């Protein structure tokens, strides 16, 4: 191709065809990019900008659904909370940051992340400290978080977490990516379909009543959740079906306490109250009871070494042994507790007396009481087994089917939620 025009420098504005080409390409690209950004900004599928809000159009932030880790890592830098609620989906769906007891260090942000591992908790905590003036952390701990079979959830993004989020990063990733565009369309579609369902709130909270939207059959959902926790499918997230113990997870836990101490952050720790069919019977069916007891002993030891209080709401108490029926007062499924249960948890941790809270709900684990507490739990379990044959048999069914390599029965997955 003959070169007709040649200039010495990039832009001396002697407009030859190459310069026209460059300017046209850049202008076209900038125009297209601006239009896309404007559209995604208006829809705002991740609820980060609040430029335009309209019921039935974009109130429900659908983009957050499969990108909790991603959105929370960015949102923490945007909202800059002083109090964060950390933990798994149990915290994410269960504890409302607007609870009056949490208002000591505002703003409060629900930093709960689904299926989070303890290593991830540590990384996200560091990330929060880097990006916000954190003063208090309320951390809900689960036994599955310490499963060394999967130290990090595959969705964990080390490129996103652990660094100061720059405005360019989050503007680009939330307005100008393929996923942002796709999520904008999804957001508009879901808002048109269910305008009254507000699942993802700007304070990070995901109210369980919208997660379990139109839940009809609590018993079936309990069954399904227990199955998920007991499955041995190597392609699924490992919970109790594949469980490995490793000291590294306890080191991560200890490091979390140290990080809080070093940064003068008030850490409030509690073991979450899953229903006893899960964190009692399913644990036992997976032959992990002894491991769970040892886990509690170790947590308690680490906490007492660091003069940190550890509350335990799990086990067999008046809340966790609630009868599995439809509807339930304290639970949505065997893993997720209701807002009422979370209100009781916070009141217990803040030492607020409430006659409605059962006396056996929540114990501070100490060197002096841990063995007795574990013994009592065992005897309560024996009692529960005698009186709840249905629940026990359902767990046995699940174990049998999983051992026989069967898939989850179709008939049980139908009718959990009302379709209209």
């Amino acid at each position, binding site marked *: *191709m003959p*070169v007709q*025009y*040649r*200039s*010495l*420098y*990039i*832009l*001396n504005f002697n407009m*030859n*065809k*190459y*310069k*026209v*080409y*460059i300017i*046209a*390409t850049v202008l*076209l*690209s900038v125009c*297209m*990019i601006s239009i*896309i950004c404007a559209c995604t900004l208006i829809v705002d599928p991740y609820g980060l900008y609040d430029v335009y809000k309209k019921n039935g159009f974009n109130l429900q932030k659908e983009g957050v659904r499969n990108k909790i880790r991603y959105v929370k890592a960015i949102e923490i830098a945007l909202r800059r909370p002083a109090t964060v609620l950390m933990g798994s989906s149990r915290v994410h769906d269960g504890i409302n940051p607007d609870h009056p007891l949490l208002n000591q260090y505002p703003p409060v942000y629900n930093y709960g992340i689904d299926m989070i591992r303890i290593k991830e908790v540590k990384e996200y905590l560091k990330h929060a400290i880097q990006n916000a003036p954190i003063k208090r952390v309320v951390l809900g701990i689960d036994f599955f978080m310490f499963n060394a079979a999967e130290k990090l959830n*595959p969705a964990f993004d080390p*490129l996103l977490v652990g660094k100061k989020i*720059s405005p*360019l*990063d989050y503007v*680009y*990733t939330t307005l*100008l*990516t*393929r*996923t*942002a*565009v796709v999520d904008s369309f999804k957001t508009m579609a879901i808002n048109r379909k269910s305008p009254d369902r507000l699942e993802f709130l700007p304070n990070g909270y995901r109210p369980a009543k919208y997660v379990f939207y139109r839940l009809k059959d609590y018993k079936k959902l309990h069954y399904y959740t227990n199955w998920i926790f007991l499955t041995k499918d*190597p*392609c699924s997230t490992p919970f109790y079906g594949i469980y490995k113990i490793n000291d590294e997870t306890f080191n991560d836990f200890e490091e979390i306490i140290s990080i809080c101490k070093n940064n003068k952050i008030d850490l409030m720790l509690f073991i979450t109250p899953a229903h006893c069919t899960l964190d009692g019977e399913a644990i036992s069916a997976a032959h992990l009871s002894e491991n769970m007891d040892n886990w509690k002993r170790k947590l308690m030891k680490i906490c007492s070494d660091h003069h940190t209080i550890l509350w335990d709401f799990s086990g067999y108490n008046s809340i966790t042994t609630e009868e599995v029926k439809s509807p339930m007062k304290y639970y949505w499924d065997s893993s997720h507790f209701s807002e009422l249960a979370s209100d009781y948890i916070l009141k217990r941790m803040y030492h607020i007396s409430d006659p409605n809270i059962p006396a056996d709900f929540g114990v501070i684990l100490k060197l002096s009481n841990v063995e007795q507490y574990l013994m009592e739990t065992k005897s309560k379990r024996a009692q529960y087994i005698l009186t709840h044959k249905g629940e026990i048999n359902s767990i046995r069914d699940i174990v049998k089917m999983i051992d026989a390599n069967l898939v989850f029965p179709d008939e049980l997955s139908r009718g959990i939620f009302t379709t209209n």
Partner: protein
Amino acid sequence: MLFNSANFLFLFLPAVLLLLYVVGTLKKQALIPLLLFIASMVFYYQSNPLFVPILLVSISINYLLSRAIINSFLCRRNIWFYAALLFNITYLAVFKYLNIFGLHLFSLLGISWSPVAISAPLGISFYTFIQIAYMIDIYSGDDDEKNPLFYALFVSNFAYLTAGPLVRYCQIKETLKGKLLGILSSENLAKGLTLFAVGLFKKAVIAQSLSEIVNPVFSAAALQVKLIYWETWIAVILYSFQIYFDFSGYSDMALGIGLMIGISIPWNFDSPYRADNIVDFWRRWHITLSNWIKDYLFTPVNYTLTRFGLGLNINSSIVSNAAYYGATLSSMFICGLWHGASMTFVLWGVSHGVLISINRLWTEFKNRLKLHIKSRFSCVLAQIVTFLSVTMTWVLFRSDNMATAKSIFASLSGSNGLYVPGRLLAVLGPLRPLLQKSGFFDAGNTAKNNVLPTQFDTGYILILLFISAFIVWALPNTKDIFEINGSSQNARMPGKIFGIGEWTPSIKWSCISAVLIVTAVLYAGTISEFIYFKF
């Protein structure tokens, strides 16, 4: 900093170009090398601040050693030269291989040893090999670089610092020095911008889309999940395309950036899957590395072995063959090791050595029988055989460990059964009942774990496969389309894409480039590293 990251696309590259423009308009051309060197250091600093001093130490010592080689004679010159080689090899070994080899060595000796807490600096393999080549070249009498700034810029230019190409001083000295400003033209900026857009599209859109299908299969293999025969084959072939688009995209971007900043970087990639034998493949794949291995490893080893063999009074034909095989296997072994300190990379390199040796045997066999078939069919067949051979070796390249590779090979060989998933049966049309009735495809112990994410339906996967294959085999490559360093004069294919023709600074091409840029920017938001960044 990755070429497809927001920081690079929206801040770094525009800022560098703007500064070059300002310096150009102020007629302060002497500042350009310094500006580019500082830009390169900023670029490298973003990956890990600790890597910068490691790079600077390597550049400084190599520069001093190169001056010592140039300024000394005879024995002393040899000493400085071997000192330079030893330094570079040791430097690479310490930072890249110490942890792996140290672990093995100390465990063999029964000594407990904890790995050093340092990760291999980004691009260390590239800048070390560039400097080794430079030492050998100046020792052999080629031009040297006296100016330390130009030398530092030659080694550390951000366009090729982290993932190549492995440039040689003689290839870029003209543009690095006096002619640099002459190349800084709007023509090169226009070409560079388009080339960068094409590369970004290949990487961010095609390679990334392919990786979304490939990764779950290899992850499942790592967990020792019994993989489905067809899914594994699809994943392995798609990985072959993924690495093609990843590396080809990167090479285009590096070349495009080079053009935009006024440095002429050699072509590194030339449609390798159109090769009709494995030697031809290596002439087209990672061309600068292939040339490096040929010139600085294969040829000297081959020469030494031949001389050694002839010294033993063995038949010259036997000596020649033995030297060739020995040199090939040892060169490819090092090539594998260069890519990574693991058994999978070593085996990948050796397997290529074996393939090259087989190719030599086959060529000799054909020559003896005077078989010179040059039909279209034989050419296509040769391309298919070459592609499949290379694809099989990519399994080793992609697998994190030998267990993963074994799991993939087991599934590819059908030892997990030949189960055809329903989603594939659904699109087989009239073949469907036949396959279902045969029973052979659904034996009792076959693997049925679908590991491909359910959001990818079979149609999407097949379309992706078709598009990839179409671009690889039917479309002209960027070397054919763009007239850079006279490349299109030797084009193997006419530069035509759907009648648009070879690149010209037209509004049509502006629209194409803008669409490529915007699509790639939309896809690039999910940051994924270039496969070659880890080497």
